[in-house]
């Protein structure tokens, strides 16, 4: 049961008429040859097919909260990336005539100034950049490393699996902040990239566990057996046949890791075991604000930005989870 939909741009789209929930097999519509007949071609129309990724993309873009989160992230992270253009001042420009100014439009100190007269809006914007760099790099590196370790552990089992599970046991028997603070004491804190490394060295375990779980269940599937029977090597089965099935959860976990990494970095910097001044990260700013508790804006604004970032990241992550789950076809069209 397929029908043609004429879109505004003149392309013809083949879509299922049947409610998709009841018919997951028709999720990827095959091009029905009787439709792509001479009349269609003569009318200058082309047939569009949709892959699973197209479906995921459409579901994602129809997820309202995810869209809201995405727009929020684009605005906040855009401000961080183009910090040099967005901020009116540099983050370290001292103006001793204007110290501890409350938020005002005058002089464009939208978030006020700190105790040596530095424009707080500029500091927050540059802080976003640091936190963004930390979050994204941690998410990407820990996802890649977690994918590789999880794939090997889940597929081959054996000693890799043993080591992986023991490491996760260790991570689970101590408060995360205690582990991270101890690691920072060893490696030294202060530098942004060192903190990033410490966070990534901690975060990959979660993703590796997820990937391992998927590998454990998928390696017993018939299609893997079929691939093996037709002579595919371990390498090909792992990365050609199984890894694509883990991409959904990895993307979701990687997205959520951005938020978690930013939160953890802030807590670590606050305790004095993360990034240190003069590098402005959002956690550093809140930590510095402790010396002037009467100036509420110094604490409120960087924290509010963290909350907004993590909120948006979580919305996008939830949207991705709904969109990338092939079993799920419940999203409103």
């Amino acid at each position, binding site marked *: 049961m397929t029908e043609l939909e004429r879109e505004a741009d003149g392309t013809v789209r083949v879509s299922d008429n049947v409610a998709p929930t009841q018919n997951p097999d028709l999720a990827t519509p095959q091009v029905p040859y009787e439709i792509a007949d001479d009349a269609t071609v003569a009318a200058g129309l082309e047939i569009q097919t949709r892959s699973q990724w197209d479906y995921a993309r459409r579901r994602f873009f129809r997820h309202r909260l995810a869209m809201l989160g995405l727009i929020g992230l684009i605005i906040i992270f855009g401000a961080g990336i183009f910090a040099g253009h967005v901020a009116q001042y540099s983050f370290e420009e001292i103006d001793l005539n204007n110290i501890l100014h409350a938020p005002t439009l005058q002089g464009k100190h939208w978030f006020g100034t700190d105790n040596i007269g530095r424009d707080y809006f500029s500091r927050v914007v540059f802080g976003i950049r640091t936190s963004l760099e930390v979050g994204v790099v941690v998410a990407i590196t820990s996802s890649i490393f977690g994918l590789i370790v999880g794939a090997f552990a889940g597929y081959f089992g054996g000693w890799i699996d043993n080591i992986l599970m023991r490491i996760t046991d260790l991570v*689970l028997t101590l408060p995360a902040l205690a582990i991270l*603070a101890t690691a920072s004491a060893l490696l030294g804190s202060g530098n942004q990239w060192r903190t990033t490394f410490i966070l990534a060295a901690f975060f990959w375990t979660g993703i590796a566990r997820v990937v391992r779980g998927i590998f454990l269940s998928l390696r017993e599937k018939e299609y893997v057996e079929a691939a093996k029977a037709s002579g595919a090597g371990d390498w090909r089965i792992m990365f050609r046949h199984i890894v694509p099935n883990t991409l959904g959860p990895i993307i979701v976990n990687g997205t959520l890791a951005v938020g978690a990494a930013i939160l953890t970095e802030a*807590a670590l910097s606050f305790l004095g075991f993360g990034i240190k001044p003069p590098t402005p990260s959002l956690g550093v700013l*809140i930590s510095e604000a402790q010396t002037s508790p009467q100036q509420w804006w110094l*604490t409120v604004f960087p924290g509010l930005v963290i909350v907004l970032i993590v*909120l948006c990241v*979580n919305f996008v992550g939830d949207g991705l989870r709904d969109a990338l789950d092939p079993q799920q076809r419940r999203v409103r069209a």
Partner: protein
Amino acid sequence: MLTYIVRRILYSIPVLIISTFLSFTFVSLAGNPTLALKANPRFSQHTVDLIAARYHLNDPIPVRYAYWVKDVFTHKLGNSLSTLQPIWPDIERTMSHTLQFIVIAEVLALILGVAVGVYSAIRQYSVFDYSFTTISFLGFAMPTFWLALLLQILFVDVYLKWNVRIFYTSGLNNPHQGAWSIDRLQHLGLPILTLMIISFAGYSRYMRASMLDVINSDYVRTARAKGVAERTIIMRHVVRNALIPIVTFAALNFGALLGGAIVTETVFTLDGIGYYFIQKLNNNDLYAVMAYLLVTSVVIIVFNLIADILYGLLDPRIRYD
């Protein structure tokens, strides 16, 4: 059951050994603990050397680790390197303070979270549900220490503007006030509130999801079909089953709470075990830091074990073999 418990305990011993050895190595390599002593003008270089020799600071790390393990059992975790005093009284005192406010926060968060979760699930997509969904999403996105700082700023302002003292914003209690006084509660109020809000976000969401899982199950439909009153269905069939996963979640959350206690206690300069840890880590006080790591990991392992046992007791479908 008993064999399961014994096996779990035996299994956690190598985990503890490896984790303590790794952290011992980490902290030993992190810095020289005698630096703090050298800075003290009352100690001569000779004294510092003697102390270093007495605490085996010049031996290779595995040897020092062995001495430390011996100290753990024979001298109750040994002496602090920054104060040269026994560690155990400090741990006992700070841990009791931390437990005092963590337990209150956890119990309050559980009660509120379960109640809100149940009601949100029954009235799914109602205004009530949406508002608490929003609150818990905010709770997930909020840094613990920032929430603590906001509460601190708020109550300092209240005190300065109206001269009303509702909560104190730092410290544990005023002089001459005991552990079970109103004064102590005024001091612990804000730390409790902080950890409660953060934990509540998790519990209410988790309870709601767990409720929805059960509400849509077959046996609930059967109960409805045979005409059981809605109230009975919810209380007897749904809530009781939905509570089972919460038990595990609550026990696992305890580790997170201990971690959250580190920042909360630092913000409120509360004499708890998390604040103790951070101070000692700053001093490279090897044995005190190790004491914290050992005590917290034992506590977390015990809680995880309790969670697993309770899970089996509550849910007869789960068997231990």
